[in-house]
């Protein structure tokens, strides 16, 4: 993980992550970005649950293209609020999206198209405030459409259940905008819960999210998505999100949380060990189904 981040996510990189929406968010990689003190990242994603909030609070982020930044089951995102309302720890630039528009922007990137037109968001402040969208008349029937320009991330981080060594990575459960992000990105980092035999992948290629030649690095890291869930591997740790919400109300509280759960731990295996029985219970609950 540390090596993949060092080699493929430089300061200032445009990074798509959390692309499956609530599940399969690669928190372990977000934590490594904090440990390596990445700066000026430009994040792309639909909702991210608290992964974006964490990176904002740690001062890693300069820009965001996102539909939603918050804590899905607990409420508002305190670090995002502080950054936008007070410039703490720094000011960030936000381009507001909807889930459809971020999906279309990445789909355009995936298709090699300059933009995709939609009839969503017409007449809204969101469409205007984003700053990159353009309203136009369809050249075919003259109807109003909103043009969503392509987004091509430098790197998309995709968490999956399994991948072979080459990076043929298989994700099941809802994909959200994962496939569009992987195909639109210049490079993909796969974070796999387990290394799969190539024969397993080849027996079921519909689950593969993108061809392996898009993949720059495969990181095998069990439990990388905790506290978000990974289908058939582990359930969501709802209470962890709520603990994060309570702990990060103040900048000092956030700093203490980051020390405890990120900076004072050498890697994600240590994080899982610190979770202990709690982690085992989430895994057992999902594996037993």
């Amino acid at each position, binding site marked *: 993980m540390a090596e993949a981040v060092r080699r493929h996510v430089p300061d200032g990189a445009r990074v798509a992550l959390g692309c499956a929406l609530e599940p399969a968010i690669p928190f372990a990689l977000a934590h490594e970005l904090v440990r390596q003190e990445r700066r000026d990242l430009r994040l792309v994603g639909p909702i991210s649950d608290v992964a974006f909030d964490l990176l904002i609070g740690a001062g890693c982020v300069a820009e965001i293209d996102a539909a939603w930044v918050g804590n899905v089951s607990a409420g508002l995102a305190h670090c995002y609020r502080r950054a936008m309302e007070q410039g703490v720890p720094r000011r960030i630039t936000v381009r507001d999206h909807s889930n459809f528009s971020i999906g279309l922007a990445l789909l355009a990137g995936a298709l090699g198209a300059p933009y995709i037109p939609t009839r969503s968001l017409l007449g809204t402040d969101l469409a205007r405030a984003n700053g990159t969208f353009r309203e136009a008349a369809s050249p075919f029937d003259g109807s109003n459409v909103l043009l969503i320009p392509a987004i091509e991330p430098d790197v998309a981080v995709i968490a999956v259940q399994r991948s072979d060594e080459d990076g043929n990575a298989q994700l099941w459960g809802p994909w959200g905008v994962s496939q*569009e992000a992987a195909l639109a990105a210049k490079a993909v980092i796969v974070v796999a819960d387990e290394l799969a035999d190539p024969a397993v992948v080849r027996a079921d290629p519909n689950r593969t999210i993108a061809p392996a030649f898009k993949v720059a690095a495969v990181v095998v890291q069990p439990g990388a998505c905790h506290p978000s869930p990974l289908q058939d591997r582990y359930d969501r740790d709802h209470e962890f999100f709520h603990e994060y919400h309570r702990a990060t109300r103040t900048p000092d509280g956030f700093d203490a949380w980051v020390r405890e759960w990120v900076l004072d731990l050498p890697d994600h295996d240590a994080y899982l060990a610190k979770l202990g029985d709690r982690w085992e219970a989430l895994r057992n609950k999902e594996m037993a189904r």
Partner: protein
Amino acid sequence: MTAVVPGEIMVAQAAREIRDGERVFVGMRLPLIAFVVAKRTHAPSAIGLFELGIVRDEPAPELLYTMGDPANVRGATWCARTVDLMGLLARGEVDAGFIGGAEVDQRGDLNTTAIGADRAHPTVQLPGSGGAADIASLAKRLIVIMPHDKRRLRERVDFITTPGHGPDRGWRERVGLRGGGPSVLITTLGVFRFEDGRAVLASYHPGASVDRVRAETGWDLRVASDVHETEPPSDTVLTIIRGYDPHGFWTRRGE
């Protein structure tokens, strides 16, 4: 049965807005439970769509904290991509959608982006649209669910994240929106219907009143001539709600 809370009245009312056989963009929190109630009472063949890429013809068997919980995937009939689900919405194949927001105005515009005059320097930064702006743009009918107070039901919202009915008749069609826009606004105090693109109080919940709604509403309240008390949830419906959300995680969190 213990005393009914506003969250339960809202869920029961939201469930009534789902008709049998309809395709519904479900959303999280209270609408999720409304879908469960509708499926188990009057709308057994309603279909639930979830924007991260899930279609279900049966609600998940356990309480969901997010639409991406593994329990919502298991037993799904389709698992796909966000753009696939949004595409169905954009094609006009989805009957109704649910959304909530921080602020709403008389036109049914919702703000889920930021409070304050300047988007770049907000007084309160909110999480944002998620899929709400798409649902409000594209669903045939929109059901809005919100806590009711004067700071939230405002004359004009600070930022239109999701489009309502606009300044005048025909606005939606003129700007190119194909969906029908808000049909109902369900709050902690009452139910508003949209007539000529403006919210009109249709009913007040048990324990509330027209005066109380007026006092807590930031626009000049219009009241339907047949305004009445909202039908309270039946014992059957309460049993379903409390069976699904036994600790009131969603129904008793003050929404």
